[in-house]
């Protein structure tokens, strides 16, 4: 197989050149090699399988953990005229799914969520089309040590085997050497080619500001945005704080501010995202739910109102700034009491020991069905969605859960509790270590750029200018490119209606 990749790129995607690394990955993929690619977000990871899907004889199957991301990709591809693409997931109703599965060979690119593969129907339909390539998106979810571990991902090996072991492409944006090793080991990748890109960006500068009183954060924020009313994301650790701060900013500044978190309806999320993309909103106050799949090139400032609980999240979030290559700034606020907030957040990530005890008691006294256990977890005030995944994963690992059936007859209650206790302790210790790593990063007096990226790569690129506030960051040199703000004037609704709907049509006439 020989292809003129540039020609194909133009033919199928109307693009004239590859971005860094894309071509290398695509070449290896087309040579049927297993590939592990670590590429920063926004560098066009998805093209690495989208182009091959056009060129390979059989469909390409992409396993992706986030439904919204999957929908976005499919929508975007369809919008560019790529029609032979489909997403199979639990949101689809049964009839729709059946129709899609029946004509699966029609598609060139098939997005699948990992949990849907539990359906034998889906698995055998995919088997039948003999995929040319299996892509694991967000591959770091495989690693138990990763910050986004997903138990569903542990079934991928089995899936890979059952669909005939096509070549693998594992993609991720952040992976420490440990996590990389986990991915390769776990998927049993065959002499994989590793294409690893530096995740630091020369156009990013880093500033950490120690705030003396928690209430001072908001004043500092107002001052910053007053000085530079440029596209800015502000990360918060809670939905409430994001909402509240957005309201305060909106009323103290003459710029449009919005908020975004997982509690909004799908429609509202879409509108906010779109407004931000089109610069109708300048500032967005958000939780970590915002960002996945957002490809806004001109974000100039990424501010952490609260610091995240691990370095990986931090890197991912600041990486959303300056995708157009122009200067962008990361500003993290830090107040010593923040560590307590972060600790509490960590504590909530896993179920508490009393609630585990209660859960085990429930299983042993009621001998419940799978459905009943699910209902128990979902209706228990102390247990959350992430806890559900954790509990089911470990029940499965312990051999109590098999094919959606619960059987604890061979298990000793006390031993099961001890098992959970050990696991939780181990995980909490790990998470605390990560948190301390994050804290020491904000407290360091060495170069922040080096401190931030040293565990991920051997060398750090030379910054364009203004490295970090430990290497002499000069605020006078921070002159973010600012676009002209639209002047919003008062018009009557009649005028506005004709403006937004008719202008283009009328001028054509």
């Amino acid at each position, binding site marked *: 197989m020989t292809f003129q990749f540039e020609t194909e790129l133009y033919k199928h995607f109307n693009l004239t050149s590859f971005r860094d690394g894309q071509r290398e990955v695509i070449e290896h993929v087309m040579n049927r090699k297993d590939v592990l690619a670590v590429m920063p977000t926004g560098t066009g990871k998805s093209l690495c399988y989208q182009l091959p899907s056009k060129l390979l004889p059989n469909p390409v199957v992409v396993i992706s953990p986030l439904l919204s991301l999957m929908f*976005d990709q499919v929508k975007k591809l369809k919008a560019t005229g790529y029609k032979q693409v489909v997403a199979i997931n639990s949101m689809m109703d049964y009839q*729709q799914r059946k129709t899609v599965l029946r004509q699966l060979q029609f598609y060139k690119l098939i997005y699948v969520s990992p949990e849907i593969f539990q359906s034998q129907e889906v698995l055998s339909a995919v088997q039948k089309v003999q995929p040319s390539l299996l892509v694991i998106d967000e591959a770091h979810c495989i690693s138990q040590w990763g910050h986004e571990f997903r138990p569903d991902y542990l079934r991928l090996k089995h899936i890979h085997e059952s669909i005939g072991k096509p070549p693998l492409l594992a993609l991720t944006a952040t992976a420490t050497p440990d996590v990389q090793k986990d991915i390769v080991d776990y998927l049993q990748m065959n002499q994989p080619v590793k294409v690893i890109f530096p995740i630091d960006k020369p156009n990013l500068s880093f500033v950490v500001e120690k705030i003396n009183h928690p209430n001072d954060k908001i004043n500092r924020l107002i001052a910053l945005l007053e000085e530079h009313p440029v596209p800015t994301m502000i990360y918060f650790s809670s939905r409430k704080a994001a909402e509240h701060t957005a309201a305060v900013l909106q009323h103290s500044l003459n710029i449009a501010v919005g908020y975004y978190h997982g509690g909004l309806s799908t*429609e509202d999320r*879409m*509108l906010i995202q779109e*407004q931000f993309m089109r610069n109708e909103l300048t500032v967005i106050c958000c939780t970590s739910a915002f960002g996945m799949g957002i490809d806004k090139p001109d974000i100039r400032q990424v501010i952490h109102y609260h610091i995240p609980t691990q370095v990986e999240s931090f890197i991912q979030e600041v990486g959303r700034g300056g995708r157009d290559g122009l200067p962008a700034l990361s500003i993290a606020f830090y107040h010593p009491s923040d560590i307590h907030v972060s600790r509490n957040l960590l504590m909530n990530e896993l179920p508490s020991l009393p609630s585990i005890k209660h859960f085990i008691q429930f299983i042993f006294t009621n001998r419940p069905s799978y459905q009943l256990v699910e209902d128990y977890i979902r209706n228990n005030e102390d247990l959350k969605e992430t806890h559900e995944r954790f509990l089911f994963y470990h029940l499965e690992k312990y051999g109590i859960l098999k094919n959606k059936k619960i059987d604890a007859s061979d298990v000793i209650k006390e031993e099961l509790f001890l098992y959970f206790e050990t696991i939780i302790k181990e995980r909490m210790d790990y998470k605390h270590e990560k948190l301390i790593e994050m804290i020491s990063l904000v407290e360091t007096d060495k170069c922040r750029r080096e401190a931030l990226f040293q565990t991920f790569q051997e060398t750090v690129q030379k910054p364009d200018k203004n490295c970090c506030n430990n290497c002499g960051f000069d605020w006078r040199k921070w002159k973010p490119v600012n676009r002209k703000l639209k002047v919003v004037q008062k018009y009557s*609704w009649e005028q506005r209606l004709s*403006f937004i709907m*008719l202008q*283009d049509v009328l001028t054509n006439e």
Partner: protein
Amino acid sequence: MFDYLLLLSIQKIQAQRTISSIYHLLKGKKSIQTIQDSYLFNLSFLFGVYSKLERRDFDEAILQLHKRHYLLFLDNENIATLTDEGAKYLEQLERKYTPLYFDGMKYDKQPEKLLQIIYLLTQTTTYLASNQNRFLPIIDDMNAQKAVKKYLKETNISMEETVINIYQDLKQALTIFPTTTSEMIVDTLTTPRQTGLTSFQLADKYSMSTDDIHLHIMHFGHYIVQQSHSGQLFQYLTYFLAKEQSTKVLTYSAKQTLTLLQKGYSLTEVAHIRKLKIATIEDHIIEIIYCNDSFNWAEFLSEEMLSMISTVIDKTQTVKLKLLKNQLPEDFTYFQIKLGLALYHKGER
């Protein structure tokens, strides 16, 4: 708007039902009790006009009305009546918000659906008319997307003309609403020139609660449905409703009962077949009476009994079953009285 609908409902149920019944009414709970009550108290036009209402927000709104001394709680806060101040406030709101175009029982989910279609159709046609083929549909619902796509494929009208049609209809429809509503609706539209605002953003912009925003938009939705049914404006929207037949609300269970009754089974037989209590089947029959004009009720109640019931209702002006039963001969069952009430109300309407 939310205050208005709440106070209006409280006034109309005359302390004969709990506050919760209003919540169920606005949510459009498909239970026999709620459907029956909505007819009983002439509130069926509000049935389901706020299907997304959350209990928390409802309770909060009621509490606020109480704090402002518009309400008086009786019987452990389960029942409320208007104070004099409340009645005055209601009059004031009435002047502001009438005429109301809500017709919840008749339109069911149609207003919500047509609003989605309007948003999507506006976005799609304005984008395509300005030669922009790439955009993310602002409405996520797959069925709505498919319907719009199909419509645009089948219609012979050019894209520019379709935009103009929608524009003219929107403009004319909005003229009859208060300026705030018109402003708000324009803000919700997405075209190449602007992205629609979310309800939270609208609430902020117009200093209203999100409940009010939602109801203002739904009110416009009901008007659109009414207009497209009567063929005045938005005629093309009937395309999106074509498949739905009877729009009146019947619970699934009552539908099954109706099918069996129409096959000729008696009430007892239906109860037996469906393994349900006779009382449940009786409730289904009441529900059917409210929703179905052609249902033959003669075997459950004679004309003579109906006229006796009607006379007592006229005389006592009550809808309380117990009071009615006391005024009627011993052999009248509660079922028959309920049936009589339903027929009385329907006759009146």
